[in-house]
C-alpha cells in the first residue's frame, strides 16, 4: 500500500511534466517510408545560413539541396554552371557577365533574377558584413543587373579565383524577401525545401514541388546529427540511418566495407592535415630544422596509427584530387639519420624541446602522440598539450603561443593562408606572396596551373609545415539507397538524385512531425505555463506557511533565497568572464579577418564593459528574458524548454527505476538485517555506489546496442516519434543513471527502516503483538519514507543537470549537454543563464521542501535543523 502511494505521485508528476513540455501534439500522417531517407552526419549546423557562419556543416546539409549558387565546384576543383548557365569574362579580366537560368523561384515564391543575384552579392561586400568569405570578394567594385537574366560583376583588380569564390557556400543566392530569416528558416532555390529542425538532433527537408529542373526523387530527407563515433556505428548497423556522410571513425570503417549490406565510398576531402610549425621564433625559424622535422615524420605510420590506414600522404598543401596537384611526398622521405644530420648542421646536435598543442579532434590527438614519439627519435623532446577548440583558437590561432600543432585545413583553395602576415604559423615569405599575387592576377587556365605547381613546390622546399595527409572522405550507405552524390570539395551531401531501389529502407525510427522552428511560440508557452504552475503552487504553499508561522518568518526565508540567487548570478557571471576564448572567433572560424570578428563582437554586445553586461543580463533575467544564444540565435529559454523535454523525462525515468530497484533492496536489507540477504544487498549496493555511471553506460551500449542490436547506441528520436520509441531511447541512459542512485536510495531506506524499528512506538506495537511483517510495512515504512523522499528530491535536482556525461555517452540532447556544448563553443550567455536557472531550481526546491516539512511536521523540522 505504501509502495503504491510512493509511485502514484511520481507517475502523476511524469504525466504533468510530459503535458507541460508540450509533447502531446496532434499526429499528422508522414510521407511513406520508401520515399524518405535518413542520413547521418557528424556535426550539427549551428545556424542554417551559410552566408553568416563559416561552419562547414551548414553547406554539408543545405548546399545543392536547399541553397544553390551561381556556379558550383566540380570534383577536381574547377567550376560548373548552376544558376548561372554561362558567363563571359572580359579581356582585361575585370568584367564578368553571368547569364542566369530563367523561371527559377525561391521557396518563398520570390522570382530569382539578376536583381536577387545582385542583392545576394551586395550583402557579401556590404560594410559590416559578417560573411565568412568576405575577403575573397574584396576585388569586387560593383554588381549590376543589366537585365532580368544578366548579371554583371565589375572588379577593381583582376581576381583569378573569382569563379571559385562564387561556388562557396557563403556565396549562395538568397531571396531578398526572406534573407534575414535564413539562420532559422533557410530559403533557397534548390530541389528541397526546409521542413523543420530539431536542435541537437536533426534537420528535415522535403521535396520542392516547384523546382525548376528535374525534381528530387525522395519526398523527405532527414539529416540526423550523431557526433559520437560509437553511436554512428551502431546507428548504421541497426538501420536507424540509411547512410552516414563523412563517417568520423576510420577504426570501424573497414567493417562496413566488408559488409554486403553497405556500400562505401573512400575519397579525399579538401582538408590538408598538417603539423603546423610556428616560424616566428626559436629553432623553427631555421629551414634546416623544419626540413629535419619533415624527414623525421613517418607519414605512413601516422596514417596507420591515427587514421587506421585511411588518408592520402601529401608533400605540400594541396589536395590530390585537384587537377593541378603534383605529388611531392618524395621530397622528404622518412629518414632518421638525415634528420639528425640536419639538426646537427643547424646547431642542435643534442636536440631541443618543443610544445605541441592539439585541438580536440581524434586525428590530432592520436596523430600528436605518434608525432611526439617520432620526433623523440631524432632528439626533439615534445610536450603535448591538449586544448579544446576555443582555447586552440585563442592560444594557437590568435595569440601564436605555440611551437607546433596538428590541425586540418578544411577550406578549399586555401593555399593563400601561407601569404598572410598574421596567420598562425607565420610564414609570409615575400617570394611566396609574389606567387599568390601572380595567381590572383592570371585568368588563363594553363598559366594558373603552372603557378599552382610552383606554389606547391615552394611550400615543400621551405618545409613550412610538416605536411601529413589529406583527410579521407568516408561515406557509408545502405546498398538500397542509390544516387547520393558526395561532393568532396565542399563536403556536400547532394540528395537530389537519391532514391531507394529494391527493398524498402531499413530504418524508420524517425518520423518527426511537429514543426519545431515553425512553432517556437508553443514551446515558449509551455515553458511559461510550467513556470506559472510552479509559481502558483509556491504561492499557495507560502500562504499556508505564512498563516501558520507568521509573515516575518516567510519574509526572512525569502530574503535568504533572493540573496542566494544574487550571489549565484555574480559567481556565475564572474566565472564565465574568466573563461578564455572569444565567442565571436569561435563562431567565425579560421578564415575570418579581425574586422569581421570585431563586427560580430559588436553585434553580440560583447564589446560592452563587463559590469554593464552584468547589469543588462540581470535586468533581462528579471523580465524572464534569459538572452539570445550566440550560437543558435534563439532565446535561451526556448533552448532550455527543448532540452527539458529530454532531461525531465530522463530524470523521472531514472528516479522511477532507481526507486523500483531500491525499495525491494532496502526492505530486504532491513527485514533480514545482519543475515545473508542483508549481506548480499550490502554487496550489491556497494557495487552500485562504486561503478562510474558513464562506464556502465558504455558497457550497456556494448552489450545491448552493438552486440544484441536491441536498441540504438544513442540519440533521441523525439517524443513526436511516438512514446515507446522515445522511451526506448531513454532506457539505457536511465539505467546507467539509476544504478548509483538506486544504491544510495537503498542504503538510506535500509538505514531509515532500521532506525524507525528502534523507535519506542514500534516497540510498543511489537509488545502489543504486531507481526514482523506488519511492523515493517504499516509502521516503519511510512516513517522511513521521509528521509527517502528528501534524498529523492535531491537526486532529482542532481539528475536534471548531472546527467551531462551520460548525455554525452548516449548523445542525448539534454540540458547538461546544452551547457557542456555551450562551454565548449563559448556560448557564454547560455552557460550563465542555464546555470542560474539550475541553481534557482535547486534553491527553490529545497526552500519549498523545507517549508513543506515545516508545515507538515514542525517538530520534525526542528529536529532536522539541529
Amino acid at each position: 500500500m505504501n509502495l503504491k502511494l510512493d509511485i502514484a505521485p511520481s507517475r502523476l508528476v511524469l504525466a504533468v511534466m510530459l503535458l507541460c513540455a508540450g509533447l502531446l501534439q496532434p499526429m499528422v500522417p508522414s510521407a511513406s517510408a520508401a520515399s524518405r531517407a535518413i542520413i547521418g552526419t557528424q556535426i550539427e549546423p549551428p545556424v542554417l545560413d551559410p552566408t553568416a557562419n563559416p561552419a562547414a556543416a551548414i553547406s554539408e546539409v543545405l548546399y545543392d539541396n536547399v541553397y544553390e549558387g551561381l556556379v558550383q565546384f566540380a570534383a577536381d576543383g574547377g567550376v560548373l554552371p548552376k544558376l548561372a548557365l554561362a558567363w563571359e569574362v572580359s579581356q582585361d579580366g575585370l568584367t564578368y557577365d553571368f547569364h542566369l537560368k530563367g523561371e527559377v523561384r525561391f521557396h518563398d515564391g520570390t522570382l530569382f533574377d539578376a536583381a536577387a543575384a545582385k542583392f545576394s552579392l551586395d550583402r557579401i561586400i556590404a560594410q559590416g558584413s559578417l560573411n565568412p568569405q568576405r575577403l575573397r570578394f574584396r576585388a569586387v567594385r560593383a554588381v549590376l543587373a543589366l537585365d532580368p537574366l544578366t548579371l554583371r560583376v565589375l572588379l577593381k583588380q583582376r581576381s583569378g579565383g573569382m569563379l571559385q569564390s562564387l561556388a562557396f557556400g557563403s556565396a549562395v543566392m538568397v531571396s531578398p524577401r526572406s534573407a534575414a530569416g535564413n539562420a532559422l528558416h533557410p530559403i533557397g532555390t534548390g530541389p528541397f525545401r526546409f521542413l523543420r529542425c530539431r536542435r541537437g538532433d536533426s534537420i528535415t527537408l522535403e521535396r520542392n514541388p516547384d523546382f525548376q529542373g528535374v525534381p528530387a526523387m525522395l519526398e523527405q530527407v532527414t539529416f540526423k546529427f550523431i557526433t559520437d563515433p560509437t553511436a554512428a556505428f551502431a546507428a548504421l548497423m541497426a538501420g536507424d540511418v540509411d547512410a552516414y556522410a563523412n563517417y568520423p571513425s576510420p577504426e570501424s570503417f573497414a567493417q562496413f566495407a566488408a559488409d554486403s549490406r553497405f556500400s562505401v565510398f573512400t575519397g579525399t576531402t579538401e582538408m590538408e592535415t598538417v603539423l603546423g610549425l610556428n616560424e616566428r621564433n626559436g629553432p623553427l625559424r631555421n629551414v634546416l630544422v623544419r626540413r629535419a622535422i619533415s624527414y623525421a615524420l613517418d607519414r605512413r605510420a601516422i596514417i596507420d596509427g591515427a587514421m587506421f590506414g585511411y588518408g592520402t600522404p601529401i608533400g605540400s598543401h594541396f589536395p590530390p584530387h585537384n587537377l593541378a596537384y603534383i605529388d611531392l611526398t618524395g621530397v622528404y622521405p622518412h629518414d632518421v639519420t638525415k634528420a639528425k644530420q640536419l639538426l646537427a648542421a643547424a646547431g642542435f646536435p643534442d636536440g631541443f624541446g618543443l610544445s605541441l598543442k592539439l585541438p580536440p579532434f581524434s586525428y590530432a590527438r592520436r596523430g600528436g602522440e605518434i608525432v611526439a614519439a617520432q620526433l623523440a627519435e631524432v632528439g626533439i623532446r615534445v610536450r603535448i598539450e591538449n586544448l579544446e577548440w576555443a582555447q586552440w583558437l585563442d592560444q594557437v590561432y590568435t595569440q601564436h603561443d605555440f611551437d607546433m600543432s596538428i590541425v586540418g585545413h578544411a577550406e578549399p583553395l586555401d593555399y593563400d593562408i601561407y601569404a598572410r602576415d598574421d596567420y598562425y604559423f607565420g610564414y609570409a615569405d615575400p617570394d611566396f606572396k609574389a606567387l599568390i599575387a601572380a595567381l590572383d592576377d592570371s585568368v588563363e587556365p594553363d598559366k594558373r596551373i603552372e603557378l599552382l605547381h610552383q606554389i606547391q613546390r615552394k611550400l615543400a622546399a621551405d618545409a613550412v609545415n610538416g605536411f601529413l595527409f589529406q583527410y579521407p572522405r568516408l561515406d557509408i550507405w545502405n546498398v538500397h539507397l542509390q544516387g547520393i552524390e558526395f561532393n568532396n570539395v565542399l563536403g556536400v551531401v547532394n540528395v537530389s538524385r537519391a532514391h531507394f531501389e529494391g527493398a524498402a529502407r531499413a530504418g524508420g525510427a524517425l518520423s518527426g512531425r511537429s514543426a519545431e522552428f515553425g512553432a517556437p511560440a508553443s514551446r515558449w508557452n509551455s515553458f511559461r505555463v510550467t513556470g506559472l504552475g510552479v509559481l502558483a503552487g509556491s504561492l499557495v504553499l507560502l500562504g499556508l506557511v505564512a498563516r501558520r508561522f507568521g509573515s516575518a518568518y516567510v519574509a526572512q526565508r525569502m530574503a535568504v533565497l533572493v540573496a542566494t540567487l544574487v550571489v549565484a548570478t555574480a559567481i556565475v557571471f564572474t566565472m564565465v568572464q574568466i573563461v578564455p576564448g572569444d565567442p565571436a572567433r569561435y563562431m567565425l572560424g579560421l578564415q575570418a579577418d579581425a574586422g569581421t570578428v570585431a563586427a560580430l563582437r559588436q553585434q553580440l554586445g560583447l564589446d560592452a564593459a563587463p559590469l554593464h553586461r552584468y547589469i543588462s543580463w540581470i535586468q533581462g533575467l528579471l523580465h524572464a528574458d534569459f538572452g539570445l544564444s550566440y550560437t543558435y540565435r534563439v532565446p535561451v529559454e526556448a533552448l532550455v524548454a527543448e532540452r527539458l523535454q529530454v532531461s525531465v523525462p530522463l530524470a523521472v525515468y531514472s528516479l522511477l527505476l532507481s526507486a523500483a530497484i531500491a525499495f525491494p533492496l532496502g526492505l530486504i536489507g532491513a527485514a533480514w538485517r545482519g543475515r545473508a540477504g542483508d549481506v548480499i544487498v550490502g554487496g550489491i549496493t556497494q557495487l552500485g555506489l562504486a561503478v562510474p555511471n558513464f562506464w556502465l553506460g558504455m558497457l550497456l551500449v556494448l552489450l545491448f546496442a552493438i552486440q544484441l542490436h536491441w536498441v540504438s547506441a544513442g540519440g533521441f528520436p523525439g517524443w513526436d516519434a511516438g512514446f515507446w520509441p522515445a522511451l526506448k531511447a531513454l532506457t539505457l541512459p536511465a539505467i546507467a543513471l539509476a544504478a548509483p542512485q538506486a544504491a544510495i536510495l537503498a542504503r538510506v531506506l535500509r538505514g531509515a527502516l532500521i532506525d524507525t524499528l528502534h523507535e519506542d512506538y514500534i516497540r510498543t506495537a511489537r509488545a502489543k503483538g504486531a507481526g514482523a511483517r506488519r511492523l515493517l510495512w504499516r509502521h516503519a515504512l511510512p516513517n522511513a519514507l521521509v528521509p527517502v523522499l528528501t534524498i529523492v528530491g535531491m537526486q532529482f535536482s542532481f539528475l536534471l543537470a548531472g546527467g551531462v556525461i551520460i548525455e554525452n555517452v548516449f548523445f542525448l540532447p539534454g540540458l547538461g549537454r546544452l551547457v557542456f556544448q555551450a562551454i565548449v563553443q563559448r556560448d557564454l550567455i547560455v552557460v550563465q543563464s542555464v546555470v542560474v536557472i539550475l541553481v534557482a531550481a535547486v534553491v527553490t526546491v529545497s526552500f519549498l521542501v523545507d517549508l513543506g516539512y515545516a508545515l507538515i511536521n514542525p517538530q520534525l523540522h526542528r529536529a532536522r535543523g539541529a
Partner: protein
Amino acid sequence: MSPWSRNMNLRAGALLTLFFLITALLAYFWTPYDPRALSIIEKLQPPNPHHWFGTDQLGRDVLSLIMVGAQTSVGVASLSVIIGMCVGVPLGLLAAARRGAIDELLMRGNDVIFAFPALLMAILITAALGPGAVNAIVAIGIFNIPVFARVTRAGALPLWTRDYALAARVAGKGPMRISSEHILPNLLGVLAVQGTIQFSLGVIAEAGLAYVGLSAQPPTPSWGRMLNEAQTLTALAPSLAFFPGCAVLLFVLGLNLLGEGLRRGAERPT
C-alpha cells in the same frame, strides 16, 4: 550488520585501497612495459601472455597504462580532499566557535556552493583555467570545501557543550585555541571517515572529468581518458573499455568499504 561482516568490510576495503596505493607507488619504479612507448604494429591486441590486459590503439601496454593511471587518480583525489579539508575544516570550526552571524554567513555560503551543479561547474572551472590535473584538483577540491565545513561544524557544535570545552572557556582560553586544542582532536575520526568518502567521490569525479578530456593531459595516462579513447573502439576491442573501468570500480569500492568500516568503528560505543 554482524561484527564479522563489519570486520570484513574494513579488511576488504583496506586491502583493496592498499593494493591500488601500492600499484601507484610501484608504477614510479617499474611497469611491465614503458607506458609511453608506441608500437603501431602491435595495436589493439586482445589480452595475451605478453600483454595481460592487451594493447591500446597506439600499441601501448594497457596494464602499464593502468598502473601509471593509478598515480593520476590517487594524486588528484587525495589533493582535492586536502584542499577541501584545509579550507573547510577551519571554516567549520570557526562557524561552530563563533555561531551567530558568521555561522549564518558561512553556512549560507555553503548552501550557495551546494546549489551549483557540481559537475557542470567543474567543467566550467577547467574550461576557465585550462584542462590539466592541477585544475581538476582545484575544481573537485572547491566542492569538497562545503562538505568538510558542514561535517566539522555539525561535529563541533555538540562538543562545545562538553565539560572540557566549558572548563577551557572558564580557564580563559580563546575560541580558536579551544577549537584547535580540544574540538579538532575529537573530530579526527569523523574527518577520516568523511575524507575517505570524499576520496572515493574524487576518484569517480576525476574519471568523469578525464572522460570529457579535462583532467591530466596525454601522455600522462589517466583511467577516465583511457575510457574515452576506448569508446570509439568498443566494437573492435571491448577489453580496452573494460580494464580501466574495472580499475575505477575496484578502487572506489575499496575506498567505500574502508570508509564504511571506519565509520562503524568510530560509531562503536566505547
